[in-house]
């Protein structure tokens, strides 16, 4: 049994050895950046204090979780063994309404997307929850504003309300009813029910803070340049305390825990959008400034969360105010941001098919062939079952034991006798990709996926299609090109606009020459730096997009560096291609690929599950905006 107990000058949530471990008579005083505990004289068990730094999160989504054990054998074979949670059944005593609401919000992240996290689910299912109604909210509480308390309305097995003469107990579930039936109780009557209603109504008026939540997503995303962001950045330490104590924050990172070799554990750790690594990809980070990190956190917590999960991420518990070392108070920040102008329309939550279990463990897959594409780029042909599941535009997580995982787009599919292979074109830029590029036929790698949304090949059928690719951006589009060139009846006119650094860096040249045999295919290529033998265009790819090459009614698929995509979109719009006829593929830091780790968030979207292919009108609100 876990419950509130005094440790290190705070009331934490810990194993309870017995009733004497409960903080009977203790009370807390909380303010911004301040939490003080005192031992009082009265015998109250729960009502002298409200929430401390801990919540159910520590137990259901622990700060450190081993996801799998990996090994790489000398013969190039790999092994991955998932590590399940295997939790004991646990009872949690003294859970507040805000924390029950928070657990329900975390369920949406870990159980109700396209993927479900089995470790979280097992811990959640094994939890027996004894909740407490708060009749004495604290100075930092505002659950009445967020409508997540102070009264427990659902999610608990038993609900206690502390009174001078004992506890009122309600059973919320069948399991709770069984426990209640086994306890010595006295029957209640209408006066008890009236007392409870009055006590809870009174509690609503005792909140130390309030926050107007009306229209927050639209308001915040409409005010991304509000001067308040600079003002709060003058105080914010970007230390991550707020996100760690927040009972709904779910961001995580992973690392390889091995000693002097490749074999060992793949570990998940709590991370925070306030760390540098959170939004970092090879070549740089998306949120270098503290201002951008605080804005990301707040616009997500009470803004984008609504578009992602159909609920705000704030339950009004006040932890982020108390445990901020410099006392930043989000209710004050929100109030200040309300002073201003601007509102942006926000999307509704996407509908996902029923969640499939994903324990995040790769499966061994054989590299059957390796094609060298350029000095630093190879295509791995990886043998798979059910090749029909892999669609152009989606990606897989490729991994090697002890080195790590990298999201790599699907660059094509090949038939192999009885089976099939999925192709991944990899450029060696970091540890994982260098190791992937060094693989030989017969070696194995770890494979997870496919993940994400594919190119909309049905939607673009029937009319002319423009494919615009920069550099290695051609890789995610190759599968789409092959599919379209195979069906000239559906795709009568396909134009490829391709820009590479130099002729030597151009990908798939031999295959491209073959495509030129197809009457439906039209190639427009350019390079940044010509070689003496190059006879084609020199310059950026957007300069190829001239009026006479963009047919009436064309739809466009674009992949390349973000700046290249921006100029391409501007050029296309200038030529009359509306933004709902343009699709782009976005790159953000994707660690888990399943929507659990939070790192690839892009405002209201997750690049891993809502993208990486997006119709441009949907992401236009944020495209090119610094800090996202």
């Amino acid at each position, binding site marked *: 049994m876990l419950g509130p107990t005094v*440790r*290190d*000058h*705070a009331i*934490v949530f810990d194993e309870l050895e017995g009733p004497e471990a409960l903080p009977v008579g203790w009370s807390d005083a909380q303010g911004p*950046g*301040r*939490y*003080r*505990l005192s031992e009082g004289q009265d015998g109250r068990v729960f009502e002298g204090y409200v929430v*401390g*730094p*801990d919540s159910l999160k*520590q137990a259901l989504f622990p*700060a*450190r979780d081993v996801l799998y054990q990996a090994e790489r054998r000398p013969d190039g074979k790999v092994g991955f063994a998932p590590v399940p949670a295997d939790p004991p059944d646990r009872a949690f005593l003294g859970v507040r309404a805000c924390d029950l609401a928070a657990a329900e919000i975390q369920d949406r992240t870990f159980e109700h997307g396209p993927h479900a996290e089995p470790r979280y689910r097992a811990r959640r299912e094994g939890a027996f929850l004894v909740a407490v109604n708060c009749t004495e909210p604290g100075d930092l509480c505002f659950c009445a504003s967020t409508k997540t308390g102070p009264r427990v309305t659902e999610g608990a097995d038993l609900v206690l309300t502390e009174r001078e003469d004992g506890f009122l107990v309600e059973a919320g579930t069948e399991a709770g009813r069984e426990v209640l039936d086994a306890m010595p109780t006295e029957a209640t009557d209408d006066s008890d029910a009236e007392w409870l209603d009055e006590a809870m109504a009174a509690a609503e008026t005792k909140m130390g803070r309030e926050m107007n939540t009306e229209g927050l997503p639209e308001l915040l995303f409409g005010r991304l340049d509000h001067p308040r962001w600079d003002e709060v950045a*003058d*105080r*914010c*330490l*970007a*230390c*991550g*305390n707020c996100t*760690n*104590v927040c009972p709904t924050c779910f961001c995580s*990172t992973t*690392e*390889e*825990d*091995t*000693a*002097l*070799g*490749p074999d060992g554990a793949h570990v998940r*750790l*709590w*991370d*925070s959008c306030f*760390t*540098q*690594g959170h939004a970092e990809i090879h070549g740089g980070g998306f949120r*270098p*400034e*503290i201002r951008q990190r605080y804005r990301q956190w707040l616009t997500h917590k009470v803004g984008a969360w609504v578009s992602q999960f159909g609920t705000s991420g704030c339950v009004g518990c006040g932890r982020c105010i*108390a*445990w901020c*070392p*410099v*006392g930043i108070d989000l209710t004050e920040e929100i109030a200040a941001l309300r002073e201003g102008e601007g509102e942006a329309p926000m999307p509704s939550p996407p509908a996902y098919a029923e969640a499939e279990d994903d324990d995040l463990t790769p499966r061994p897959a054989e590299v059957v062939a390796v094609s060298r594409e350029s000095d630093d780029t190879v295509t791995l042909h990886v043998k798979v079952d059910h090749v029909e599941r892999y669609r152009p535009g989606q990606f897989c997580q490729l991994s090697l034991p*002890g*080195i*790590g995982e990298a999201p790599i787009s699907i660059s094509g599919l090949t038939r192999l006798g009885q089976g099939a292979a999925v192709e991944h074109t990899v450029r060696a830029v*970091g*540890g*994982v990709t*260098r*190791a992937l590029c060094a693989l030989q036929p017969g070696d194995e790698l770890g494979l997870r996926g496919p993940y994400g949304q594919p190119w909309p090949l049905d939607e673009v059928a029937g009319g002319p299609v423009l494919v615009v690719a920069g550099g290695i951006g051609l890789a995610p589009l190759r599968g789409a090109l092959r599919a379209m060139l195979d069906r000239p009846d559906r795709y009568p006119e396909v134009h490829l606009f391709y820009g590479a650094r130099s002729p030597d860096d151009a990908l798939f040249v031999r295959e491209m020459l073959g495509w030129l045999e197809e009457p439906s295919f039209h190639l427009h290529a350019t390079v940044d730096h010509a070689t003496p033998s190059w006879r084609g265009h020199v310059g950026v790819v957007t300069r190829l997009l001239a009026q006479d090459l963009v047919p009436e009614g064309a739809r466009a698929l674009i992949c390349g560096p973000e700046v290249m995509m921006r100029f391409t979109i501007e050029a296309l719009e200038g030529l009359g291609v509306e933004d709902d006829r343009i699709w782009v593929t976005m790159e953000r830091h994707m660690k888990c690929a399943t929507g659990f780790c939070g790192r690839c968030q892009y405002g209201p979207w997750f690049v891993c599950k809502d993208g990486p292919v997006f119709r441009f009108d949907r992401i236009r609100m944020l495209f090119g905006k610094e800090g996202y």
Partner: protein
Amino acid sequence: MGETRPRLGVFKLASCDGCQLQVLSLEDELLALTDAVELAFFAEATSRADDGGAFDVTLVEGSISAPWQAEHIREIRERSKFLITIGACATAGGIQALRNWRDVDEFVRTVYASPEYIDTLETSTPVSAHVPVDFELRGCPIDKGQLLELVTALLVGRKPAIRDESVCMQCKRDGNVCVMVARGEPCLGPVTHAGCGALCPSYDRGCYGCFGPRERAHTSSLAGWFQKEGMARGELVRRFRGFTGWAPAFREESESHE
């Protein structure tokens, strides 16, 4: 492995040897380490003389505080493929960098009976102020787990899991109650590079910043909070002027309160 084992060199400059001791205190992994790499030079651990050859990986402890060290580090750099500086002295100048705010000649005259034998520089500076460094491993002393991770990452070919984040991240993952919020104990954790395992807060003390500033160390906001809570200016200077006081973020903060 045999012939192909990478050659490791361990050198020291102005320092207390504590970081080298962390290598030796890798007890359980030490034999595996010597299997994986060739200990080509490590004066504190072996009697093997320097053969003058090149190193695949070199660990350097200590700051540059004497003219010979400034020469020596150039030679080490030339012989090293991957140069790692270890500890607060090598990465920030160390506690001996306190001299950088004082008159060194006066110290020499006061402390030593025969000052003419002393050949020292005016300042103690990190190795990176003299030669390019490939990786800086922080701490006073370094954390042996981080050292093992760094060596493993180099051997296996992965990015080392050494995160540039606040000490607070570690405290929260470990379930430590914040000493600053719950007791008013001043703590440099929010602006300090993690890696120590949140050692001081785990023992109910505030962090004193021995791993040096993290990226985006927002020292002015933290110092402002200390001041609001009643910390005097002299104490503020001392807080930021410890084992890594010469690291730019801490140095600028302490100087702004003088």
